[in-house]
């Protein structure tokens, strides 16, 4: 029996402000980034965010869609406590883009997944229930999420298995992260509705599944239910279901005849948006697709695993390309970037764009090649380059000035010379560590910062004998 699976995936676009108002997309406490527009106050009107349209266009082009010459917004009307205006501004008749094709490798085989449409829309507010949804006496509404820009990507029912659907979502997530159109760390960055039917049977939709893995679980469970029906000769009813992660089952949400009539109308507060100039601008600025970049980096002699890290770490491909201009060993460069560089970056909570400049890394690698510094020392130097934002030579120079002692030598010296404090520390006296840090600072003339000193001391003390 052949399954036909389609996905409607919502991702949160990476913008500074909401889709229709100047409120920020970050919130620290309930209702702290709201305004009359996203709270649906009478008299307010939407003002469409250019960036959201551009990011949506970027997604559409990456999925080989045809961008509409003109797009409109529509009002999708329904009542729910999280919907401030009583309608959602979305796209209905004329979406941003349609007729695309995605060609990821799914389950080891290059697939052709047709993309039906790509559109942008606003998120409703966040709804909480006092206690449990089943027994709550009232709901509590936080409008901080209301108006967050979403992009919906709808496929044709081209997946044949739940595993394919999951792998597609994983591929999509990394593609969108690579394009930097989403923030992969954002809460609930990806939500999907999945539809599935068996051999021309009725279509069942499973609403609002978070992430990628859960989609596979929900589809597997629903597929089994439908196969069970088929084996008993029963007909599957057309309906909308919900996946309960706890029981691993789908349950009926509403039957076909209970489907809501959304009474779509054109959004009269927004003009028709001409897309030609936007699509052209986005198209020109469009980066090479990750698969193409991966192949290119591999052709330079970089092993696949390293190339993958270089391509899919946000911002790293451009960084790699810039370094390659001044350094002739791409494989060596990739090895450093994918390992020590990445580690230091994460350790310091940085992104590629606020890491040491490419020329400084090129300088460090050059110093290794010329034998000016050995690889082990270089690993320490790069750490300091990140911590202090300095170049390798500067770091080395500062060290040479410190009686020629390396960090490690200073630490070992302090441990050797302060036996009492060391045993106090080992006996559990935390203040002894403070004393030792002070000694390190003194001896290194404060070249080693206290945080670093603490780290190294603890490491050495715990590693040491006794």
């Amino acid at each position, binding site marked *: 029996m052949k399954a036909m699976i389609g996905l409607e995936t919502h991702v949160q676009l990476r913008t500074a402000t909401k889709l229709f108002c100047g409120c920020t997309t970050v919130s620290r406490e309930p209702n702290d980034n709201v305004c009359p527009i996203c709270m649906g106050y009478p008299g307010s009107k939407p003002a469409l965010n250019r960036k959201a349209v551009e990011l949506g266009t970027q997604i559409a082009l990456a999925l080989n869609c045809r961008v509409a010459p003109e797009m409109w917004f529509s009002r999708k009307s329904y009542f729910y406590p999280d919907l401030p205006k*009583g309608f959602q501004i979305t796209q209905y008749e004329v979406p941003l883009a349609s007729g695309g094709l995605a060609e990821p490798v799914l389950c080891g085989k290059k697939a052709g997944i047709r993309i039906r449409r790509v559109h942008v829309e606003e998120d409703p507010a966040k709804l909480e229930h006092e206690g449990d949804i089943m027994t709550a006496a009232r709901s509590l509404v936080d409008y901080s999420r209301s108006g967050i820009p979403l992009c919906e990507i709808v496929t044709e029912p081209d997946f044949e298995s739940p595993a394919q659907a999951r792998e597609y979502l994983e591929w999509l997530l990394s593609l969108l992260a690579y394009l930097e159109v989403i923030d992969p760390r954002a809460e609930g960055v990806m939500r999907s509705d999945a539809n599935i039917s068996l051999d021309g049977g009725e279509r069942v939709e499973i609403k609002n599944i978070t992430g990628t893995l859960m989609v596979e679980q929900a589809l597997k469970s629903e597929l089994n239910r439908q196969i069970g029906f088929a084996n008993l000769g029963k007909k599957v009813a057309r309906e909308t279901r919900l996946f309960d992660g706890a029981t691993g089952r789908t349950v009926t949400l509403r039957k076909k005849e209970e489907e809501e009539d959304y009474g779509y109308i054109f959004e009269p507060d927004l003009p028709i948006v001409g897309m030609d100039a936007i699509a052209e601008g986005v198209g020109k600025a469009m980066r090479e697709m990750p698969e193409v970049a991966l192949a290119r980096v591999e052709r330079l002699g970089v092993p696949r695993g390293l190339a993958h890290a270089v391509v899919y770490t946000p911002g790293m491909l451009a960084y790699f390309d810039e370094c390659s201009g001044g350094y002739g060993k791409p494989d060596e460069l990739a090895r450093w970037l994918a390992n020590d560089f990445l580690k230091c970056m994460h350790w310091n909570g940085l992104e590629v764009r606020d890491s040491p400049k490419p020329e400084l890394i090129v300088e460090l690698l050059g110093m290794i090649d010329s034998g000016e510094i050995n690889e082990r020392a270089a690993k320490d130097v790069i750490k300091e380059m990140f911590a202090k934002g300095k170049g390798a030579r500067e770091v080395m120079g500062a060290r040479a000035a410190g009686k020629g002692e390396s960090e490690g030598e200073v630490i070992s010296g302090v441990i050797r010379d302060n036996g009492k404090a060391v045993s106090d520390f080992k006996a559990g006296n935390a203040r002894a560590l403070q004393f030792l840090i002070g000694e390190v600072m003194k001896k290194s003339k404060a070249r080693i910062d206290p945080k670093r000193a603490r780290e190294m001391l603890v490491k050495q003390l715990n590693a040491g004998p006794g």
Partner: protein
Amino acid sequence: MSGPEPAASFARRAARGEVSIEESVAKTLEECEKTDSRLACFNTICGEPALSRARALDGLAKEGKAAGRLFGVPVSVKDNICTKGVRTTAGSAIISDYVPPMSATAVERIEAEGGIVVGKTAMDEFGFGGFCVNVGKGFRVPRNPLDEKRVTGGSSGGCGAVTAALAAAGIPHASLAESTGGSITSPACFCGVVGITPTYGRVSRWGLIDFASSLDKIGSIGANVEDAALLLEAAQGADARDMTSRPEPAGPLADAARGLGKRFRLGVPKEFFEGVDPRVSDLVWGAVKKLEAEGSEVGEVSLPTAKYAVPAYYLIAVSEASTNLARFNGTRFGLQREPEQAFGEYFSEIRAEGFGDEAKRRVILGTFARMAGYRGKYYLRAMKVRTRIIAEFARAFEKYDALVAPSMPILPPTFEEVSGLAPHEAYALDLCTTPPNIAGIPHASVPAGMAGGLPAGAQVMCAHLQERRVVEVASALEAVSK
């Protein structure tokens, strides 16, 4: 009617410090209170805020820092146009205590020109009416200052009544009104004053409580064409907060009311005279003939689709209105109760309690007109008919500078006459006002003379963005009708 001093000249004198704005505003407020007790034309009178603003403006005038086209001019504002910190109700019980956190762009611009908001005027609930008898629960029905047994016209009924009453008392004043399908023309006509409805988008709708977003237009009502033009001139212009506002430069208008003696090519659309009270037709034709005698060219023109404007207008209006009113659900603002039922029940109860009859009728009709299975036949078809009406107007304006027709097909009716009308009979009386409104073209209503002591109005319609031409023709009509 000799009328009060023109607002523009009052503003110039006030800016030179020749009048005490505080005294003038105090006198205006007193007259507003008096008028309101007689005519019920205000939902809110802004006593203290208006006085303190008047004192501040007097201070500016003393320091020689006074500026603004409306300096010290009292302005009343229809109650569906938001005023920051001042209750704004749209005439509905569902938001009878709503205090907006922002002012409408139009109000901000009027205040920036020195205008002083003295009150919020009575209206049909959310603009749902042509006579101002469909006020929300707990609101008073305004009365026509010319004859208290008669309606003011609507939905900007309070604007029309206040303008006529203050003019009769010799007080300079203008009123910020709003039209969706005739809500400026109708009260201007029935109260014997001037109303100008600009091109759709000419005045920003930011801060306007929506009735039907693709039809709503903020405009002005004044004792004469010049006052109405001046207020519109101050309020108009592009605004990033309303993406449907027009980007084209919005030039001066009030001065166009003073350059008389121009000759025009005037078209008279015959469909606008079908079923019109002959006393009204005669007065409008009389005015047109006088302009012809002064050298204008006059020709008859046919707009065959105009007679479908009423159903097309209503279907678009109620479809959009039924979505615009979905935000009123008994949370965040307005009428609220401790929500004990599930949301469907709670919303249905609070909306039943807060909406008046006409609001319920239009919300239900609008929900129906956009339902699957009916949407194509009603909502979408109406939008296509609109395309045809716009095209017919455009063709007429290739040949004519302006079209002139009756404003309302009848003289101001009594409350008793209106109460006997079924909804579809009331809607049918919008036959002259729905065509320019559905097409979004600028138009004005000016008094065309009296019949049996009651005013008739002539409506001037021009091509999109031709507000200046509207003012020129309206002034010419005003001059010959005096």
